[in-house]
């Protein structure tokens, strides 16, 4: 069993409620932080911990905190990003649903560190029942003196509010989230200015993912240096992985980033192997926007080394032969799955979620969806594959926010690694409607056979 810092107590009976959570050692980090530490010291501990943003980008959290501007007389805000919407990702939901006080505890300490007296949790609108769970937890924390005025006699005031979104993936992008929090369409802002300087209501703002803020609790309790000893290299601490697709045990797992991908998929402690005795075909290891990898490149890097479940190892080989840790949305495909069909559903997703501000993304995602639909239905042409490649190249890097990249990468990786399967959908169109391509042989992962 690996180390568990976040979910260790998630299944204690009644942990959703304050009394049990407190009895199990909850809110100790608030006592330690507010009574014995300065805000600067907390930021320092988070820096030492090496904690990287758990939403997908993996940016060092302590560094992000240190950027916040502190102009005289201007309130600052902490905003918790609970807009979890990346296909394959359902870890934050799990944490909020089962152990909500862990998030509230992390939010109080983080709010103190950043000087936020009004902190907002922006949660995706579909998680409607979790809003009630969080509001209940907030009320309990407040009734017990951990929120409100002069918390634990420290002089620090803090309120936490839950804001419900209304169905828009783009609001997981921090500036779109801020726009949405202001009651507007979720159109990402041009940066700079960064939120740390001008965020919500033009005030300095830090936006962090649910899991990132929850991780502040063990960091304060054990100290940043101890936290950094868990894991490997720059992948410190633990990471929540939400595993789904064709596996025996889908669910949310907390790992310490030292285990191999193979162990994660096949061990009974985690995914329990591929369902129905099938073979592993491919996997998207970090949420739908990161590159899909065929089984051979998933389990071993191009150099033939074992691939591990951490930031560095998953991205080993760059996009040519590697992928990314991303949000930890681990999607597994068995031998019966169709890569063309899957890529089509993801292209449809990104077209649906594009905010429409930037032409490459607004138009490009629609074209990609149409081409993939055609290929999936057996009505495609071989030149469509090159056209898809060309379109995704023209989206990537040419948009205000990373949604464009997120839409381009899955298409690029599918063509890069499964070009033969795309071609088969054209050359054997009728057969492709009746059966799936199966494992066959993978496209040569090193050589990228595309035009232009």
């Amino acid at each position, binding site marked *: 069993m690996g180390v568990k810092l976040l979910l260790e107590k998630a299944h204690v009976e009644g942990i959703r409620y304050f009394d049990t959570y407190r009895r199990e050692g909850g809110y100790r980090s608030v006592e330690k932080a507010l009574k014995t530490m300065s805000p600067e010291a907390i930021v320092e501990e988070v820096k030492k911990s090496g904690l990287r943003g758990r939403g997908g980008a993996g940016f060092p959290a302590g560094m992000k905190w240190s950027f916040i501007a502190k102009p005289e007389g201007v309130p600052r805000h902490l905003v918790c990003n609970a807009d979890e919407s990346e296909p394959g990702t359902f870890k934050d939901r799990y944490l909020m649903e089962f152990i909500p006080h862990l998030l509230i505890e992390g939010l109080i300490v983080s709010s103190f560190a950043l000087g936020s007296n009004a902190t907002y949790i922006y949660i995706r609108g*579909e998680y*409607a029942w979790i809003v009630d769970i969080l509001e209940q937890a907030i009320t309990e924390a407040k009734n017990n003196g951990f929120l409100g005025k002069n918390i634990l006699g420290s002089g620090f005031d803090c309120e936490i509010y839950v804001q419900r979104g*209304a169905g828009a*993936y783009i609001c997981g992008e921090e500036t779109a989230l801020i726009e949405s929090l202001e009651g*507007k369409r979720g159109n990402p802002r041009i940066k700079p200015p960064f939120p740390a300087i001008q965020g919500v*209501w033009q005030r300095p703002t830090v936006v962090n993912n649910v899991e990132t803020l929850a991780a502040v609790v063990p960091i304060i309790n054990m100290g940043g240096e101890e936290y950094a000893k868990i894991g490997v290299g720059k992948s410190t601490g633990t990471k929540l992985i939400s595993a789904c697709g064709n596996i025996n045990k889908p669910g949310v797992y907390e790992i310490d980033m030292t285990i191999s991908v193979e162990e994660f998929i096949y061990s009974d402690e985690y995914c329990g192997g591929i369902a129905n005795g099938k073979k592993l075909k491919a996997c998207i290891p970090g949420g739908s926007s990161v590159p899909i990898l065929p089984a051979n490149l998933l389990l071993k890097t191009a150099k033939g080394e074992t691939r591990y479940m951490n930031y560095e190892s998953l991205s080993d080989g760059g996009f040519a032969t590697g992928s990314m840790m991303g949000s930890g949305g681990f999607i597994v495909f068995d031998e019966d799955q169709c890569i063309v069909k899957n890529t089509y559903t993801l292209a449809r997703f990104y077209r649906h*979620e594009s905010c429409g501000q930037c032409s490459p993304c607004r138009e490009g995602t629609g074209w990609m969806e149409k081409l993939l639909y055609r290929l999936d239905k057996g009505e495609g042409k071989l030149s469509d594959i090159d056209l898809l490649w060309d379109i995704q190249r023209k989206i990537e890097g040419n948009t205000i926010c990373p949604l464009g990249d997120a839409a381009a990468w899955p298409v690029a990786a599918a063509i890069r690694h499964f070009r033969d399967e795309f071609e088969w959908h054209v050359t054997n169109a009728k057969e492709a409607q009746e059966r799936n391509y199966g494992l066959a042989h993978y496209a040569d992962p090193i050589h990228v056979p595309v035009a232009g």
Partner: protein
Amino acid sequence: MVKFNETQQAEFNRLVARYPEGKQKSALLPVLHLAQDSFGGWLSNETMDYVAELLNITPIEVYEVATFYSMYNLKPVGKYMFEVCQTGPCMLRGSDDIVAYIKEKLGIKPGETTADGLFTLKTVECLGACGYAPMMQLGKHYREHLTKDKVDSIIDECRKNAAANN
């Protein structure tokens, strides 16, 4: 005429009080949820104009938001809306079959409502239940690990609830 009753007005006040003075527009998304729940499950122009008036913003500021987010219904929907996820992870676990089954069983296509006004079928993009796929959202909650049998029992449950409430 649309108008919040006392309970709804109290909830409105609670929502608006969360934001700094003069930033009441920030309450727009939660207030639109409240309005949709209060006035028949969708947002008519009249409802949106009412929200604009309450928040002291222009109607266009409400329209542009209501049309951006997928959870706001801009036309009437059935009493029970089946929002079935069809994105990759659900597709891998057979969501296409679930959609086909509901279509056949209710005789409606995605986006349509049954003649009795009870059911609307809608296909949606990832709802964050990938490990419990296939799934649908029904009202405030998720229905997960769907099978044809489960769909049958959900439909029966809705019909019974509707009959009991009439």
